[in-house]
């Protein structure tokens, strides 16, 4: 090989970069987070349901929150009529977080796992939780 040293150095750098995802992850247990639904408010509910069905909330909660933000802040609409006909007060702090008062165990668990940093809390006050 001509200029073998430089070329092999290049290959080593390429391999090191390509193998980046594997550093420190081989053999680690693949634990997926489960959001915790055990809060005093949820325990009090007779029928444990969210604003919309679970599957929808799992995939679309951020879109719903964004829609709520636009409705409340820009359109002065404060009532959301869910797909099952029930009405809810549009409020992150007073509706969502009333039941899901455990931000750390509910929101953050998945967000941290998936590397998501929502900008909800740039404006909203995060609920105070006992550490």
């Amino acid at each position, binding site marked *: *090989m*001509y*200029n*073998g040293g430089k*070329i092999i150095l*290049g*290959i080593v750098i*390429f*391999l090191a970069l*390509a193998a*980046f*995802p*594997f*550093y*420190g*992850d*081989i*053999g*680690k247990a*693949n634990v*997926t*987070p489960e959001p915790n639904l055990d809060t005093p408010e949820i325990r009090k509910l007779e029928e444990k349901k969210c604003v919309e069905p679970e599957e929808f909330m*799992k*995939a*679309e909660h*951020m*879109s719903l*929150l*964004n829609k709520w933000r636009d409705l409340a802040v820009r359109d002065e609409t404060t009532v959301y009529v869910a797909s099952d006909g029930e009405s809810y007060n549009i409020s992150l702090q007073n509706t969502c977080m009333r039941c899901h008062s455990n931000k750390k165990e509910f929101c953050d668990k*998945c967000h*941290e*796992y*998936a*590397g*998501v*940093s*929502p*900008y909800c809390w*740039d404006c909203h006050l995060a609920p105070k939780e006992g550490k």
Partner: protein
Amino acid sequence: MGALFSLAAVLLLSLVAYVGVELIGMRSFFGIVIPYVAVLTIIVGVVYRVITWGKSPVPFAISTSCGQQKSLPWINQSKLDNPSTTSGVIGRMALEILLFRSLFRNNTSELREGRLAYSSGKWLWLAALAFHWTFLIVLIRHMRFFANPSPAFVSALESLDGFLQIGAPRLFLTGAILLVAVSYLLYRRLAVRTVRYISLAADYFPLFLIIAIATTGILMRYFIKVDIVSVKELTMGLIGFSPVIPEGIGVIFYIHVFLVSTLFVYFPFSKLVHAGGVFLSPTRNLANDSRMKRHINPWNYPVKLHPYEEYEDDFREKMENAGIPVEIPSAKAPAAAESESGNETNDAEIPVGEE
């Protein structure tokens, strides 16, 4: 023709993933087997290609000179465009790889009032730069699926990328710019007659493939959402070599992964491997020092030479006898002197004789 063929190929690939996952249910095949094969192919393939190039000799110093060569001390050398040192070469390569300096010199030519006119054409450079950089950032952003917790530099990059805070999930600018830039590159191939004339299926296919990858990615993030936690469970399983297929990941994810796998497999065998090749371009990575250092052709083999001195040794006597001048006269010194003077008289006589 090449464009239609490539478009059809990409649509067919998407359809294969759709049918395979949604109708036949081959989730493990498309979610585990194909990605492993693809990653292995791109890594082994690129290393193989680079080693093959490394084994090819560079017979001549063919560095392209785009500015004043190193010359007399009072003539300014263009150190980056015509480097004569290793550091100059590194600077030139860095500008080439990071900023596409040679593409910046792109010209366009057109007929204006019957005359051929040239002008600077920067759109190709701009779109290519935007495309490559956003593609790199998108690739780095994907590292959030391959480390738990997501690396800090990835989170920092994401917050920068989504700093406009449009919508939720917030819009990543690079994804949008990537799609716009690669679409412009496709448009350019189709719209500029001269470029279309030299475009082949191998030029269109990567463009359509990357457009499809970006489209499925954007669809998956903003429109047809998939359960991101399950997706990360799958990706973390892959890199931990304990693959799992979680329930309930939408088919769009498998289409996206299949198209990316196609890109990975296609990479080492196509023009895409210019990513590695640019480092080994002799016109760029050689210093233009051919007047200072002799570039030895590695092909050179020992050649049996017969220089004039040996020629004279072989034939000195015969030459002297025939009156041909020699550099080193033989021992019979007077003969040499005679032949030389004789020669002069001959030279003088010839024109006279001819007249």
